[in-house]
């Protein structure tokens, strides 16, 4: 019994010795081991793609801290300029920030999901509204009720399209916040997050849909200068945001051919949208002239418009004397009073200039030419002579009248003297 106890003690002593030997290790290696594992956790935080991963890393941090707590004094010195505690404070803070990113991402993804639903609903409504407007437009004669109904539908469609534009813009804006970093510096997790957001918001499809609905809207409705000006502004703003995000998305999707093609296609659609608004604006202006039987050469930009107007005026000036004077005058007054000065100049020219579709120089050229035309139709010089002669005649008549009165008085005075 006693010998058994001695044996046990010997075994225990051996085990303790073995443990002491095994435990003996380099402080340098302990430090290196700590640093390596700490670095792995830091990298893990950067590469984490889900909140769950962050939580697992949190547990590993706690484990590391517990494991090395006995070497705190050594690590306080060897981790210079950090200390044991400050290293953990730093990594725990980094983990919290990363967790915060995921919380924000979850919120944004939910938001994008809600936006997507709203967009789908509005898109469906728009589709039926466009169909209804088409139907009403096809009606040969429109009574007051039809016109009122048409106006109501157009207003509703306009509001829907604007609302949908805003929703799509919100998705794009929320994506922009992801691009604080240059795309080439985004890690796989961040890229993955952008992919899922683009997919969740069905971004590419919705942008394409927004543009095509805007184009459709122009086709089915008659737009005022204000409508087109507003639409031009919308295009400008949206295009600006897209130009910020498009190339970055192209970088993120580098190597994904279908997405790259889609991005390029959206670029083209933005150009097409702008082109269609411009065409609509020029068509509306052309229509104003045509309604007054003024046929201008086809124009699609400010220079062409100026050339066309100048050419028309030059032809009219050439035809003075060939055409009947009343006809020339009618054309002149229709052009200037009914179209140019009444509608085009006050309503359209400011929009054209603001959107760089026409220059001040173009406007001056047209107005100078109108001035020249006016000189032929209602020459200022002839007009002045007419009045000057008229005034001269009146003055002569007044003088003659006065002289006549004076003469009469002079004749009366001697007769009075003779009576005396």
């Amino acid at each position: 019994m006693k010998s058994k106890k001695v044996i046990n003690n010997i075994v225990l002593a051996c085990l303790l010795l073995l443990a002491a030997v095994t435990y003996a290790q380099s402080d340098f290696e302990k430090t290196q081991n700590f640093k390596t594992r700490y670095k792995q956790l830091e990298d893990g935080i950067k590469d984490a793609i889900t909140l769950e991963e962050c939580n697992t890393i949190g547990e590993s941090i706690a484990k590391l801290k517990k494991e090395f707590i006995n070497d705190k004094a050594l690590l306080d010195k060897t981790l210079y300029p950090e200390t044991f505690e400050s290293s953990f404070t730093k990594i725990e803070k980094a983990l919290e920030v990363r967790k915060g990113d995921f919380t924000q991402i979850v919120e944004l993804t939910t938001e994008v999901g809600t936006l997507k639903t709203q967009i789908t609903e509005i898109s469906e409504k728009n589709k039926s509204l466009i169909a209804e407007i088409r139907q009403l437009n096809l009606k040969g004669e429109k009574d007051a009720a039809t016109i009122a109904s048409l106006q109501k539908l157009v207003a509703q469609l306009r509001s829907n399209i604007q609302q949908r534009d805003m929703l799509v813009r919100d998705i794009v804006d929320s994506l922009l916040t992801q691009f604080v970093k240059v795309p080439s510096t985004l890690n796989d997790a961040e890229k993955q997050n952008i992919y899922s957001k683009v997919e969740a918001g069905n971004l590419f499809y919705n942008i394409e849909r927004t543009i095509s609905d805007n184009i459709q809207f122009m086709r089915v409705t008659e737009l005022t200068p204000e409508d087109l000006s507003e639409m031009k502004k919308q295009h400008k703003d949206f295009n600006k945001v897209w130009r910020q995000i498009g190339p970055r998305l192209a970088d993120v999707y580098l190597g994904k051919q279908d997405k790259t093609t889609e991005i390029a296609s959206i670029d083209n659609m933005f150009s097409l949208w702008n082109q269609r608004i411009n065409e609509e604006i020029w068509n509306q202006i052309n229509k104003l002239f045509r309604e007054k039987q003024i046929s201008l050469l086809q124009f699609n930009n400010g220079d062409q418009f100026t050339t066309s107007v100048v050419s028309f005026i030059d032809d009219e000036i050439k035809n003075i004397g060939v055409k009947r004077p009343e006809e020339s005058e009618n054309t002149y007054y229709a052009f200037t009073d009914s179209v140019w000065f009444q509608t085009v100049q006050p309503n359209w020219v400011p929009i054209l200039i603001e959107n760089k579709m026409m220059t001040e120089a173009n406007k001056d050229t047209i107005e100078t030419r109108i001035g020249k035309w006016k000189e032929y139709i209602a020459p200022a010089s002839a007009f002045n002579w007419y009045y000057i002669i008229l005034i001269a005649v009146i003055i002569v008549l007044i003088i003659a009248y006065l002289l006549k009165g004076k003469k009469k008085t002079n004749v009366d005075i001697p007769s009075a003297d003779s009576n005396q």
Partner: protein
Amino acid sequence: MRIVKHVLLVFLVFISASCSKLILQPADFAWPVENVIKIDDKGFIEEPRYSFTINVKPLFQEEFADSNLAIGKEIRIIRDNLGYYYLTGINFKNVYLFLPDEGGMQLEETYLISETGLLSPVMNQKSPNIELIDGDKIYILNNNGIVR
């Protein structure tokens, strides 16, 4: 005569006191942990934290009688509280103690540890001593010698 002797003694004490160099004491130079540094192609090691560079080729000449063996090898270095540098490495039989000297380090002591050479030496700070572990063997060293 006796008085003259005493005066001269006091005078001598004053002179020797005024000639001694200023020493800042006490000091603790101990590194918390050894450093393991790879020797570059020119035989230099560069200590990043305490920022010094030194040529260790003469150490290999001393240990292996071949300074060219230094290239690409690793040196383990640690400093004790008194300021002695302890240098050793794999296959070294000795641990070398150095003190800083003008423009270099001067060898102060050489401790023979293993006739067959150290297999995997590591050094830890156990102030005021340095602990040397090689496999299952543990040695305690200081500037006065191998303590155990």
